[in-house]
């Protein structure tokens, strides 16, 4: 018997979460935020209407990058930082696949920064899940490119001297066509963001705040803790005014190019910012992405940008298809006969 092909019909009934779990023991630290993200992905994948064999998860190196071993789909645990490049090759070779990259802040932004920005700017149709815990976990606690200034870690005993990167600004700067942020412990929100990313054609960048309870516990506590989260977090929704607060009585408006928080009574003021994700310009999402470290503002989560356009694979394959058609699907003989030849008899 030879290998089955993509055309071999499937007889499986509707997929469930169980279909996406493997027999491998999950080896993250107890209490790690990765469990919640794994759970969310295993819940979302069966809902997407995509056959299991068409999913591919490509990861780099780091705690997050062990992800593929726990998902019963095609998985490729690659090398540090290079997952977006490898995923690019996978999807260019077979655009029928649904290709997901799982990466961390060190993997995606430090050693792999170059691949990330180029996958985004090309609009390669891959979904990048970047687990951001603001620390190197697998190497046991060094500062990462998203660690705050002055943060004390094993590699920065006197405090970090490095200005952190803003992952969403970077993705927007690279013109990623889908940019979003969610949080490990916000299960329903995370699932809705993953679904939106799956529905998007083109490069999707999803930053997921993820707690590392061993080396950087409570890194997002000041925003996500149950008693403060209503006031500390604003959920962005396309077409909706940007409103937050336990009383739903605060919102964000623009004063020129400066966002500001306004409090209101019963009715929101008319000049409240109405969120839009589909502008070709990245100005607005960029403004909002800047708020994440400003204590005067709530942390924005949700979809920052979602614009449609031809993917890299569309462009590449349409060129190839056009040429194949123009030349009439040439074979070996036509290949060998190309070029200036002469006969010796």
């Amino acid at each position, binding site marked *: 018997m030879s290998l089955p092909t993509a055309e071999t019909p499937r007889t499986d009934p509707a997929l469930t979460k169980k279909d996406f779990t493997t027999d491998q023991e999950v080896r993250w630290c107890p209490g790690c935020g990765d469990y919640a993200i794994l759970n969310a992905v295993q819940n979302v994948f069966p809902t997407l209407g995509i056959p*299991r064999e068409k999913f*591919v998860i*490509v990861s780099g190196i780091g705690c997050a990058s062990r992800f593929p071993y726990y998902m019963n789909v095609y*998985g490729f645990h690659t*090398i540090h930082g290079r997952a977006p*490049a490898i995923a690019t090759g*996978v999807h260019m070779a*077979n655009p029928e696949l649904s290709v997901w990259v799982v990466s961390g802040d060190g993997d995606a932004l430090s050693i792999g920064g170059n691949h990330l920005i*180029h996958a985004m700017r090309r609009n390669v149709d891959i979904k990048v899940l970047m687990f951001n815990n603001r620390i190197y976990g697998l190497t046991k606690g060094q500062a990462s490119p998203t660690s705050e200034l002055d943060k004390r870690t094993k590699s920065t005993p006197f405090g970090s001297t490095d200005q952190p990167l803003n992952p969403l600004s970077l993705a927007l700067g690279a013109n990623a066509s889908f940019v979003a942020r969610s949080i490990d412990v916000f299960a329903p929100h995370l699932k809705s963001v993953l679904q939106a990313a799956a529905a998007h054609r083109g490069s999707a960048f999803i930053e997921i705040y993820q707690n590392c309870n061993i080396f950087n516990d409570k890194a997002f506590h000041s925003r996500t803790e149950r008693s403060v989260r209503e006031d500390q977090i604003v959920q962005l929704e396309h077409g909706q005014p940007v409103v937050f607060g336990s009383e739903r009585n605060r919102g964000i408006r623009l004063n020129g190019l400066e966002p500001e928080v306004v409090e209101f009574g019963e009715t929101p003021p008319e000049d409240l910012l109405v969120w839009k994700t589909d502008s070709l310009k990245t100005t607005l999402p960029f403004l909002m992405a800047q708020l994440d470290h400003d204590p005067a503002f709530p942390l924005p989560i949700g979809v920052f940008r979602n614009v449609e356009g031809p993917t890299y694979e569309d462009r590449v394959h349409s060129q190839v298809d056009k040429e194949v058609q123009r030349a009439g699907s040439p074979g070996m003989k036509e290949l060998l006969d190309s070029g*200036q030849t002469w006969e010796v008899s």
Partner: protein
Amino acid sequence: MRPFLGLCYRFPMTEIHSDSSTEPVRTKLESVVVRFAGDSGDGMQLTGTQFTVSTALAGNDLATLPDFPAEIRAPAGTPAGVSGYQIHFASSDVHTPGDRPDVLVAMNPAALKSNLEDLKSAGLLIVNTNAFKKKDLDKAGYGSDPLTDGSVDGYQILPVELTRLTRAAVESVGLDTRSADRCKNFFALGMMYWLFDRSMEPTQEWLTQKFAKKPQLEEANQLALKAGWAYCEATEVFYERYRVDPAPLKKGTYRNISGASACALGLVAASKRADRALYYGSYPITPASEVLHELARFKAHGVITFQAEDEIAAIGAAIGASYAGSLGVTCTSGPGLALKIEALSLAIMVELPLIVIDVQRGGPSTGLPTKTEQGDLALALFGRPSEAPVPVLAASTPADCFWIANEAAEIAIRYMTPVIVLSDGYIANGSEPWQVPEASDLPKFAPATFDLTSEGDKPFEPYRRDESTLSRPWATPGMPGLEHRIGGLEKEYGTGNVSYDPINHERMVRLRAEKVERIQEMIPDLEVDGDPSGELLVLGWGSTQGAIAAAVESARADGLNVSKTHIRHMNPLPANLGRILESFEHVLVPELNGGQLAYVLQGTYLRKIESSTKLQGKPFTETEVREEIDRLLQTTSGKTTQP
């Protein structure tokens, strides 16, 4: 050294003598070496290539050697900016581009200065006298005019006012002076076509295609080309015209092919044989970029080319494409190979087919980007962390790149392994006539087939083995029921699950090694040219083949008993190599590095190797190899080889 027989021009100056009406004598030559040299903006590579095409179409055997600086436009008129193109063509077998030219075309004083010492004594020297003004001489570092101070005594010099004559020829087109002057290489080319009785047609057709959208430039270059021809015809500056008859090539269809083109063509052919789309990930690097340029034009054959953001992404994407079922290929030069090593190690661990081509150049570091070297053999064989064997192949001529690419693909797919292919700048840029194979010479090949029927709910085992090749199944995303995970962590035999078990690790390390060793079964035995045993074997690899063949031929012509052999499979080495090495008293290994193959052979076969090395960014000349042969035979037997 054979002088260039009888070649001489009729008049010391270039005036037309209308009273001389005798037809020039036609002399037959067996073999000629011509070198075009000029500023890097003078179009010397183009001139050489055009002359080569015409010569190939005339049926000669040939070999070429382009030689250009790394700078696109080094300071004009200085020796640093000199670009050269040498072609050796003959009515008999040609092994090398020739040690020294019979004819040198020097477009300026700098070109003369850097090339004159190579010109054979009494060789023909054609110079553009309009480029020999005081400031030109200063730039070239000449204190006085070499054309008059005795520097060119002993050569047959033909001074031509190339610039002035070209301007006059293209005047009717109305180009600016700068553009008009850029046509002078075609004037020189026209002269060479006349002198060697070559057809101008291929070049004329090429100009029509090339400048389809710039009719003025087409017209000007056509005029310059014809003017160069007409100049020779009308002025009768030459007593003789030369004819080099077609070489006795085997019956068939031929084309002239460079190493880069042959490599590209070979990869596309291999993808057709394997029924796999060709995916080529590459980052621009000299001298490997030509392969990318060639393949980017092959979209009609379904080829996907990906110009990556860096060398690592280039190999990464190729690995990803192989994982998804394509034939993934990446190509680079030494500095790029260094960057790809970690990804290459991943491909070894996950056992996916992959071809990594290294077009070697002078190094280390940026080194000599446009010059040739064979310095990456040790890197290819051993340059990876831990125990990470890969098959390594080396192309020996430009046309051989076609066959090496095919072999690499077959090994990669049948054994599920990355393969390194070594080429070099000399092979990639050089060209030779190539007998185009028939489609029937290129049979299909496929990975090993596996019985995947499993008992009960036992999951698919991605690391199970084919008994003969030890390869694992190539189950690609999209195949239902075969979902599995691979990665850089050590794999458990069979299941492919992550395993830290010490015994399993040793088993897997040895398995990966044995898989590569078994490729030896696919490799043909090495053939010895000459006596199968004796005093001296010259053993080469890669691009030294031509120089070795020419030197051994000349040694035999002088009555010496020398055998030769050439290795194309660097790992695993051919099975009979040990026996061959035992059969000779002395083994000479010429290589363009510090003696890397010699080191490997000494370590592998525990025998003394005579290593001959050259590190000048240039290929061996026939003479250099011959001198080594003579030195060895003299030392060992007291034979003298000088007449």
